[in-house]
């Protein structure tokens, strides 16, 4: 037990890595073994996430004194060795990632994971990259984990072949490769000036820089910020996102809902550690606002549900970035709450689009491009025949009243996206607006806050209009539609995520309290820095 506790922080990285490696070694036809392995792996991740949540809270102060767990890889101490660090924010992100992984994995088992060989390995590596990015305490390792999750996402986004998928997939890959190069340039500049890449060590050194070096350091931080913002899907660097996400397979897009949040997490973490100056923060506000506005317009113009959901994902990123750009510490807690709700909602919504697409008798969004490609391509992709992606295979039990279920889930998702009561989308947006207005200075509410409030409310209205229009066409139109055959395996994850949002509404108070503590410790990186660097002095004390 003590051994597990000691190595708990590294397990979210090791478990998916091991399971992915074992899957590669299994013979190709062992699908069941792969599925079981994948499910066990994500379940373990969820348990670890829950344990990390418990240990970083004040409930167990005897294990990690300040709620910050540090794991020195290879037992090399902090500024020279590589560390994994878990604090409240990391624990929340790891748990959220595991919840989304379980839901999308169960959903994909219904029929989307065939052929199973590359899918499950890639999925595990994606979760490994996510967990690693949330846990690492080192800028260069952040880059490496970003690459791990991006490389597996490249494989996942191309699943299903089809010219449209390959075309948007290539745009996605090109943009993200360029972003990775920017990331490297930023990291190199910061290393060249500060001489360290450990985030805790950087916090101290950045404050002690002399003014002549500071400009170059800020340039490095800004380039790094641009790389994060590309991953977070902020305007004007997000035109690849709706295309790539809306043609990806439904469970893949649902899993990707978590991926944009890695960019946001990096902005939050590095932004608070490096104590960015005011102009950069102001830029973040306007960039977020522009993202929100363009995404709202995109929602109104979208014709397909998957595309609309992609734009709603962008709108939520806009709200998050703009809120963080206001530089109000009290807002960070509600921001995290909104982020959790938005991840769960978008993920559920993407999975729902996979089911509603089946109601069309003719003209699914990508069908015109899915004319059988020339034979050699199947060989190149290791795909045997296109029927592998067909929907005719019977897995699980078909549930009755499919249309009623789809309609109910659709309404819930609309309520969540638009931010209407009684679901948690309303609580999240209300908390954001109320905190922003309450925290304003005595002299009056600044114009930025009013602009943000107006933009959030109007974007909710835009989402409502756009979604009602599509919903009416989908469920009420007179045109003949096939009643889809739903399987429990597909319906249950969507229902579970929506139910989780309902639980978040009821349990809003304890969740918000936890997140507010997380926000406070994020804005006072002293405990984080202290915990990371203290591990070293402990180590030195033990040596003769």
């Amino acid at each position: 037990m003590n051994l597990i506790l000691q190595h708990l922080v590294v397990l979210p990285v090791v478990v998916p890595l091991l399971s992915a490696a074992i899957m590669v070694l299994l013979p190709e036809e062992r699908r069941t073994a792969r599925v079981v392995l994948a499910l066990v792996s994500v379940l373990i991740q969820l348990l670890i996430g829950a344990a990390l949540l418990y240990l970083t809270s004040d409930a167990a102060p005897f294990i990690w004194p300040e709620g910050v767990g540090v794991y020195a890889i290879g037992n090399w101490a902090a500024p020279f060795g590589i560390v994994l660090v878990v604090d409240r924010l990391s624990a929340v992100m790891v748990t959220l990632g595991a919840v989304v992984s379980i839901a999308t994995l169960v959903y994909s088992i219904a029929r989307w994971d065939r052929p199973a060989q590359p899918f499950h390995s890639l999925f595990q590596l994606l979760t490994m990259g996510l967990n690693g990015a949330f846990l690492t305490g080192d800028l260069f390792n952040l880059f490496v984990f970003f690459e791990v999750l991006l490389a597996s996402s490249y494989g996942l986004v191309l699943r299903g072949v089809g010219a449209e998928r390959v075309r948007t997939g290539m745009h996605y890959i090109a943009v993200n490769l360029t972003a990775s190069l920017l990331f490297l340039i930023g990291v190199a500049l910061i290393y060249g000036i500060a001489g360290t890449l450990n985030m805790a060590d950087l916090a101290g050194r950045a404050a002690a820089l002399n003014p002549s070096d500071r400009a170059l350091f800020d340039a490095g931080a800004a380039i790094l910020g641009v790389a994060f913002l590309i991953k977070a899907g902020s305007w004007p660097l997000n035109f690849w996102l709706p295309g790539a996400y809306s043609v990806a397979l439904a469970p893949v897009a649902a899993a990707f809902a978590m991926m944009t949040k890695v960019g946001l997490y990096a902005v939050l973490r590095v932004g608070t550690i490096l104590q960015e100056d005011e102009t950069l923060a102001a830029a973040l506000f306007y960039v977020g606002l522009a993202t929100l506005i363009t995404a709202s317009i995109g929602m109104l113009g979208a014709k397909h549900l998957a595309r609309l959901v992609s734009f709603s994902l962008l709108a939520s990123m806009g709200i998050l970035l703009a809120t963080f750009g206001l530089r109000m510490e009290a807002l960070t807690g509600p921001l995290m709450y909104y982020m959790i709700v938005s991840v769960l909602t978008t993920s559920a919504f993407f999975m729902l689009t996979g089911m509603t697409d089946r109601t069309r008798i003719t003209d699914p969004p990508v069908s015109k491009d899915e004319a059988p490609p020339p034979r050699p391509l199947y060989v190149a992709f290791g795909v045997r025949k296109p029927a592998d992606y067909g929907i005719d295979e019977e897995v699980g039990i078909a549930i009755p009243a499919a249309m009623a279920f789809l309609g109910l889930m659709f309404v819930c998702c609309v309520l969540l996206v638009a931010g209407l009561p009684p679901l948690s989308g309303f609580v999240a947006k209300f908390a954001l607006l109320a905190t922003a207005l309450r925290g304003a200075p005595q002299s009056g509410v600044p114009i930025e806050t009013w602009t943000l409030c107006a933009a959030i409310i109007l974007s909710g209205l835009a989402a409502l209009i756009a979604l009602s229009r599509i919903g009416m066409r989908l469920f009420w139109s007179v045109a003949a539609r096939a009643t889809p055959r739903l399987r429990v395996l597909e319906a249950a994850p969507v229902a579970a995520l929506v139910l989780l949002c309902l639980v978040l509404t009821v349990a809003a108070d304890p969740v918000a309290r936890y997140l507010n503590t997380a926000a406070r410790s994020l804005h006072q990186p002293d405990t984080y820095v202290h915990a990371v660097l203290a591990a070293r002095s402990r180590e030195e004390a033990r040596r003769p």
Partner: protein
Amino acid sequence: MEMVYALVIGVLAGCGTWLLLRPRTFQVLLGLTLLSYATNIFIFGMGRLAVHKAPVIDASNSIDPAVYADPVPQALVLTAIVIGFATTALFLVVLIALRGLTGTDHVDGRESEE
């Protein structure tokens, strides 16, 4: 030496950016490759340029940091090269797949109307 070094980075990055914005997939691939070369050389330069300095500490010699080159950027470059190589290979596969599926090497999968 610094001047030549900076010029090399500048020329590589400039050519890479231009090629990246071209409409043919192979040009984009070459652009990404050139840009990654520029980035790698830049990372290496961030460890400060030095001649006749080893990055690996010699145990028999004195342990004086001034005698050695900074090993960290060299390690970073190595990682970046490996990752860049793998992603370029993947991009090449996607490029060929798109060519096979659409019959054109335009990045949008169809020729622009002109």
